[in-house]
């Protein structure tokens, strides 16, 4: 039998969702989607698009997921109206997966937790951080509301097959260095359009050592380099994560040894220290030790990027028995109800409350300047979120710095951006 053309994991997943055996970068394809996702911000326009097409029902009521997470619990009357549109649509369409406040969480942490996304699947979402699910070896990408509306109606989406780039991380991670630091360093290296329209395939021994949370964090920020998707080949860690959650068959894909990459970059992570992205663009990245004295007014630990249980545990290790700087506000937002419950059980809330932190119900809230920690003019925040664009977290004259949870927690204690080792002794 003639060998088929070599493909990357991204190309294989896409080909498997068309009638083709092989797809090549640049090709326009019509893809079957496994899951379509939208939130309270993007769904009103998507529902409008869906209705304009003139179909009655969504393509599959088990495969359309609606998560009101951005401005919920509703922050104001217009937000409540948007949530109402979403709620009524979910009810009318008898959607299996609609998550009301109380069962809800930040969509990109919630869906993997509920086993709604599996390796080898194609997931689209009307949210740019939909690329998160690449962390478990799925193809997932963000689209707008019209695309989502059309996908809800047809179960299909037109896509251009992206070129793939390979990012190899070798070496052993230093203490307090996480997936967030790897992806920030990468964006700092290639720039905010360094992977424009491309698939970012993360691999190497440091990736194999990363827990699922760190893998999700890396895939989550592929969009911050302009990427179409981020992806990591599934392994034992992936399988262990999905085992208690899986409710349907799935397939694991791996890149061929001789697959074609538009670019290959190698990083030695043993030289990497915690990273910080300075205003006002995620590529403005520095080693935390080179940041100088940057005093901050607020720290936010949470979001689809770093609101995982592991992230809260890291913060807990640093904050244990300590108090935050009196001049500063620390806001901690577990990403889902389950993480909230587990953090409570593990005693993390006691640590956070004693340190002087405010703990919020799951919400995207402050990440996009919605509520629960909006900044005033001249204020400066350090956040474990994903974007530090001008005005992202509030007033146009405020500033957002990005880091992982370790730097965020340590900086909350010091009142200025610092290396976790300034707060916690080495080896502890």
């Amino acid at each position, binding site marked *: 039998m003639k060998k088929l053309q070599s493909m990357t994991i991204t190309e294989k997943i896409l080909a498997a969702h068309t009638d083709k055996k092989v797809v090549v970068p640049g090709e*326009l394809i019509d893809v079957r989607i496994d899951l379509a996702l939208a939130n309270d911000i993007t769904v009103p326009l998507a529902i409008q698009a869906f209705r304009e*097409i003139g179909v009655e029902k969504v393509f599959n009521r088990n495969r359309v997921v609606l998560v009101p997470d951005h401005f919920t619990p509703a922050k104001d009357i217009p937000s409540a109206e*948007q949530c109402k549109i979403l709620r009524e649509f979910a009810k009318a369409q008898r959607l299996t997966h609609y998550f009301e406040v109380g069962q809800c969480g930040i969509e990109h942490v919630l869906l993997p937790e509920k086993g709604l996304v599996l390796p080898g699947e194609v997931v689209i979402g009307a949210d740019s951080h939909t690329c998160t699910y690449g962390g478990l070896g799925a193809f997932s990408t963000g689209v*707008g509301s*019209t695309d989502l509306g059309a996908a809800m109606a*047809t179960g299909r989406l037109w896509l251009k097959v992206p070129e793939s780039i390979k990012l190899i991380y070798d070496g052993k991670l230093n203490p307090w260095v996480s997936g967030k630091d790897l992806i920030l360093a990468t964006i700092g290296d290639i720039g905010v359009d360094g992977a*424009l329209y491309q698939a970012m395939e993360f691999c190497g021994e440091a990736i194999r050592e990363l827990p699922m949370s760190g893998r999700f964090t890396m895939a989550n920020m592929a969009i911050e380099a*302009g990427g179409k998707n981020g992806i990591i080949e599934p392994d034992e860690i992936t399988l262990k994560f999905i085992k208690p959650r899986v409710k349907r068959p799935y397939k694991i894909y791996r890149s061929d040894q001789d697959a074609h990459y538009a670019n290959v970059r190698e990083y030695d992570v043993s030289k990497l220290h915690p990273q910080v992205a300075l205003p006002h663009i995620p590529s403005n990245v520095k080693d935390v030790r080179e940041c100088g004295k940057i005093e901050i007014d607020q720290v936010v630990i949470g979001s689809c990027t770093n609101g995982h249980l592991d992230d809260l545990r890291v913060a807990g290790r640093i904050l244990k028995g300590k108090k935050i700087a009196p001049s500063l506000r620390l806001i901690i937002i577990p990403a889902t109800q389950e993480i909230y419950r587990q953090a409570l059980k593990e005693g993390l809330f006691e640590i956070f409350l004693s340190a002087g932190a405010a703990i919020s119900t799951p919400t995207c809230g402050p990440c*996009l300047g919605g509520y629960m920690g909006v900044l005033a003019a001249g204020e400066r925040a350090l956040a474990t979120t994903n974007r530090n664009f001008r*005005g992202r977290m509030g007033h146009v004259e405020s500033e957002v710095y990005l880091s992982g949870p370790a730097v965020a927690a340590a900086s909350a204690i010091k009142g200025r951006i610092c290396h976790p080792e300034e707060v916690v002794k080495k080896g502890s």
Partner: protein
Amino acid sequence: MKLEGRIWKFGADIDTDAIIPARYLNQSDPKELAKHAMEDERPEFIKEVKKGDILLAEKNFGCGSSREHAPLALKAAGISCIIAKSFARIFFRNSFNLGLPLLESPEASEAIKDGDRVRVDLSTGELFDLTQRKKFSATPIPPFMQELLQDGGLIPHLRKKGLKKKR
């Protein structure tokens, strides 16, 4: 299809929070969104922009969020076309899906000045700066995207295809 309008020039990496800040995303009325388009980036834009005007930018225009409110706000503000050195991918899809044409032209992005009047031929990608009397070319819009524009966006396009299928 030909367009003509005044150029509004912007820089590199203009993100969707700059195009339409998230504080206005608690609703999705195009007219309401248009009132705040680019307000943090260039406050006079929304006061002076006229129907048919053209937006010009450097690289990676529309990076960041998937909010379709961004191209929707610009379209509702009267913008007829956006020319840039490059576009972020979700913004690119969203614009064509809404029937708002985008053209990639690094040379035009550099040479055309704010306030110039420019004529655009969408079918060929030819640009003519009437103020400077200079010609530029943009990457031609792929046939599939041309089709989307002609139909007025993805939804009318799907409706048309759907009707055909029924026959």
